[in-house]
């Protein structure tokens, strides 16, 4: 419990670890670059590695940080709103919806502009979220029906994805790589699509207090003068947009939104602002580590980051379940 007494210190430490690690991650890949080289290149001395560094490694690192933070915050929001510690964008079907639309656009419109892919992924996330809300509206967006409807929708989207895979086997490898979630070959062009995340993450910090009130329960929130339904739906849309934009850029990377909020809840107190900040930092760190492991383990072969996050995230999740059960 000592650690909970100095949450700000802990957050700063994690922030510093994140910074340090992002520096290290720049050096790892099929060509390893020493930290000193990286430092000199970054402050402006051109060297043989500057092309790789500025065109591949740097955007990739930035994308990993933004996407990791967005997915973790999206999961944190869902878990607070649904009052369900097991909710997350991937379990509730939002990620699957984004994937279905993205796969459809990849296969049906192969010659379309590259911008089509992220747009359709975002559309998919929004569509599933809308259906989810419409269906659960009757029960007043009650938490348990929400989760079950999400599972069913996710199964339907999965069927759709499998249909495309089976019907168009030529594109299967690109599709699969995308479905697993990978940061391979991402460049500055893709960062553009993450602008919504860059806007929404700071906004979430500003409105974190409202999230905390919502987490106290509908009655308490209403008696504090909040419009509960409006608040809940706005936070849900934030979560959906964060997820949609992330999935659009890196594919469906799982377990970040599920696992990271738990970890940060254990590290900081219930203050929502600290909780959100911690989730964002740890999410970024998690994805960055996963991606670095994926590209550094057996170069030049890359293991998709989504597989690494699943391999690390799932055992931790099982451990959490076990604790939940024994509580």
């Amino acid at each position, binding site marked *: 419990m000592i650690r909970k007494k100095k949450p700000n210190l802990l957050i700063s430490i994690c922030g510093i670890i994140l910074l340090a690690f992002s520096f290290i991650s720049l050096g790892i890949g099929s060509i390893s670059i020493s930290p000193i080289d990286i430092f000199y290149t970054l402050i402006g001395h051109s060297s043989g590695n500057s092309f790789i560094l500025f065109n591949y490694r740097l955007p990739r690192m930035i994308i990993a940080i933004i996407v990791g933070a967005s997915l973790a915050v999206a999961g944190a929001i869902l878990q607070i709103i649904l009052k369900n510690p*097991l909710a997350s964008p991937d379990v509730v079907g939002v990620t699957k919806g984004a994937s279905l639309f993205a796969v459809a656009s990849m296969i049906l419109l192969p010659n379309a502009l590259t911008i089509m892919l992220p747009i359709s992924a975002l559309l998919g996330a929004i569509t599933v979220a809308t259906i989810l809300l419409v269906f659960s509206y009757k029960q007043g967006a009650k938490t348990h029906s929400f989760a079950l409807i999400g599972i069913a929708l996710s199964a339907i989207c999965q069927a759709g994805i499998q249909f495309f895979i089976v019907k168009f086997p030529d594109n299967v490898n690109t599709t699969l790589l995308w479905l697993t979630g990978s940061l391979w070959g991402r460049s500055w062009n893709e960062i553009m699509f993450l602008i919504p995340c860059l806007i929404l993450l700071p906004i979430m910090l500003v409105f974190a207090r409202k999230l905390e009130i919502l987490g106290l329960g509908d009655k308490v929130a209403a008696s504090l003068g909040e419009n509960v339904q409006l608040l809940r739906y706005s936070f849900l849309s934030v979560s959906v947009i964060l997820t949609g934009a992330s999935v659009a850029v890196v594919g469906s990377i799982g377990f970040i939104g599920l696992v990271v909020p738990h970890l940060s809840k254990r590290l900081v107190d219930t203050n929502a602002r600290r909780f959100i900040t911690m989730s964002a930092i740890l999410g970024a760190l998690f994805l960055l580590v996963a991606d670095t492991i994926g590209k550094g383990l057996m170069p030049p072969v890359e293991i998709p980051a989504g597989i690494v996050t699943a391999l690390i995230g*799932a055992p931790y999740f099982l451990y959490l379940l076990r604790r939940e059960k024994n509580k």
Partner: protein
Amino acid sequence: MFSVKGVIQTMGSKRTLNIWVVAIISLSLLLIGLFLHLSVGSTIMNIHTIFNAIFQIDQSRETTIIQTLRLPRTILTVMVGAALAVAGALMQAITRNALASPEIFGVNAGASLAVASATLLFATLSPSMTVYAAFIGALLGGLTVYVFASGRKMTHVKLALAGTAIHLFFSSITQAIVILNERATDVLYWLVGSLNGKDWTHVQVASPWIIIGLAIAFLLSRSFSILSLGESMASSLGERVQLIRLIGGLLVIMLAGSSVAVVGPISFIGLIVPHITRKLVGPDYSRVIPISALLGATLLLYADILSHFIVYPYESPVGIVTALIGASFFLYLVRKERLIKQ
């Protein structure tokens, strides 16, 4: 034991249909389904041709098609449908959780992972080895969810979410195997769950397990209904709870594992068929198990017939059809709040 029967019957819903009416209707649906299933394919055949092909074997083209392609496929469909439905019913009895089913409990995902890795590890994998791989995987998947996620404090919803997360975990490893390996497409097609191109070897491999599993499940059905009353009630009625649980678990692995090994992970049959059955005939498992088997076989037959018409004239994998039907029905159940008794 009239008291036991009384308890089981009074805890059923008020309006259940007569068992014989249900049995006769589902049997006739099954028979019609059998004929439709045999007649639909790349060429449509009439009843007369089908009868000739089955009972008066000649050298005609139709006979060959029926004998080597359609008959094994139909038999396999019936067996797998029945096996998955009964597996689901058993799981719901053991865990007393309305959401328990091979797919929610990670049994399908575990078996898929095991079969996918076995297919890619060993270049030549005999069908019976596939079944053993699937058994191991099913056991692994089921145990993971059971050990980590089931318990008195786990509500239905929590179990479903936990199962989904574990499913995600297994399927991402399966994906990794497929991505990092060249021979991907076969496994991918198999992962959807398809009855296309199944022949007599597949029937031979799966049928002993499924038939024995179904028979034991039926013989022990009374114990399962007592088990579904709850642990304390069951042990006070003189039932060896742990033993029956263990047998039930083994039966689930036999039934679901061998089905997945042969046709791939076909989802939602094990979840929705027991629900429909209980709605029709009440919670007595000596009725639920046979009727579930009948309805599961019927549902899978019709789903497989439908799979020919989704993108006519191409055939779509039946797993997609059952997922669409099953998930829609599941949505309906959730909206009716039948599944959720927190």
